[in-house]
């Protein structure tokens, strides 16, 4: 297994080297040059500085999502009547492309269901849509509404990460096997015991998976934001080296963010498997 993984990496970098040496395009440097550029950027500290900047909105966004998103997902799963909770959803809704949403909304709300006040009905379609909406198209709107500072970038991370975090928490809660709930009631368990001892432990694994997938989305969000809003951190390095035609450095930056994202997700997955062993 491990041997094949190494072979696969070797093959990939080998092909990269070959295509880079072949004069396909002057903008495509071979692997060796890119690797040297990467070492140089690590040595002189530019890469480290850039990651410090990029990490801020990413961490802020993910932490906010982890707290509010999980709470909201759990609320959606548990309660059908906390109406005010669905309010923030509509604020997010304002930023989404309305034209695409209207037919879906009519479909979800309209047919035969009448007006329901439940959180589930109000907010489920919103998160389904957010999962599918093209986020890059919304980023200019964010800049327009919140300027070019940290807020916009944090929001970009949140908008990408929140749906999957909320939906996973919600599904985890809703998929509790009914016989476990009946079991709890048959032993005169209270509603609080039901939630604390059965529903939440059951949902924990899915909630954690949601966090991991949310972080993956967050990486996408932060890079898009740093490229489209104002170049800072990693986005700044990419666009700066692109504009000065220093392609080895540009590719080194891109490769580094891919590697950082992949490694951190892999580590989270290992934590996940340790905490929640599969049957």
């Amino acid at each position, binding site marked *: 297994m491990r041997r094949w993984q190494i072979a696969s990496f070797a093959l990939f970098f080998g092909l990269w080297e070959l295509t880079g040496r072949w004069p396909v395009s002057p903008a495509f440097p071979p692997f060796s040059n890119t690797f040297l550029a990467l070492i140089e950027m690590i040595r002189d500290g530019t890469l480290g500085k850039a990651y410090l900047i990029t990490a801020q909105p990413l961490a802020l966004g993910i932490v906010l999502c982890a707290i509010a998103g999980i709470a909201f997902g759990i609320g959606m799963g548990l309660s059908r009547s906390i109406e005010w909770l669905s309010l923030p959803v509509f604020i997010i809704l304002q930023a989404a492309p309305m034209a695409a949403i209207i037919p879906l909304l009519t479909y979800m709300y309209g047919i035969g269901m009448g007006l329901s006040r439940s959180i589930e009905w109000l907010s489920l379609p919103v998160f389904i849509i957010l999962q599918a909406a093209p986020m890059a198209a919304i980023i200019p709107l964010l800049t327009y509404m919140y300027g070019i500072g940290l807020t916009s970038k944090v929001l970009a991370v949140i908008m990408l990460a929140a749906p999957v975090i909320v939906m996973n928490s919600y599904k985890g809660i809703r998929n509790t096997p009914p016989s476990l709930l009946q*079991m709890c*009631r*048959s*032993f005169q368990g209270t509603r609080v015991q039901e939630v604390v001892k*059965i529903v939440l432990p059951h949902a924990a694994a899915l909630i954690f998976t949601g966090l991991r997938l949310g972080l993956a989305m967050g990486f996408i969000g932060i890079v898009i934001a740093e490229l489209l809003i104002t170049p800072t951190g990693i986005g700044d390095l990419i666009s700066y080296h692109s504009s000065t035609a220093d392609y080895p450095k540009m590719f080194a930056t891109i490769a580094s963010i891919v590697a950082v994202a992949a490694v951190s997700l892999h580590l989270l997955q290992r934590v996940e498997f340790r905490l929640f062993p599969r049957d």
Partner: protein
Amino acid sequence: MTEAIVEVKGIGKTYDSGVEALRDVNLSFPKGQLSTLLGPSGCGKTTLLKIIAGLLPRNAGQVLVKGKPVDGPGPERAFVFQDFALLPWASVLRNVAFGLELRGEPKEKREEVARKYIAEVGLKGFEHRYPAQLSGGMRQRVGLARALTVDADIILMDEPFSSVDEQTRRKFQEDLLDLLRHHQKTVIFVTHSIEEAAYLSDQIALLSPRPGRVSKIVRPNVDHSRSPDEIRRDRGYLDTVDEIWGMLRQYV
């Protein structure tokens, strides 16, 4: 006849979908005996059991436990689930002690009680295993042990052996009879197996399908103090099986 510990009077149940599951069901369950609800699938036997357990609301009628009407689950009734209903993230020990955990018993006390019943159902040594590591039969023994820990007089069992293989089932049935006789429990048991009903029961209520009604009450003439193999060759046992099949075949 011994006094009834559970009585149901005029029970009716119609699901939201419009399906009428039960109509005017009247039954009494004698104290200390094993009563079976038997019938083809869709006759509402599980529905009736869950109404007695207080897990499902009824549309009509009354459930009396020890003479008092009840509307929800109570400490004098414990339920054994068809799909075991074990917590997959909890060890056998915690699962068995879970009923007591919900009642707020201190950890040491409830684990002591749980260990005793784990041994009684024959799972000694498996206290720290998880449900996924056990066979179907062993999982159901965990479910049974959990129901016994809370010291309820009445044990309600919903097709407890349906996901257990045949050999395990026989052994389990024999153990069940021993255990219940020993603890003098009243058992209400749902099954669709005629042999199981005739072998285990003091009283069998035959339910007719859609809507479920009591079509006949059979009291098998089987001496439960005899050995399992003797019972299975016993005239009374075989006659009961024939009699029930004669009545049930019209619904199949």
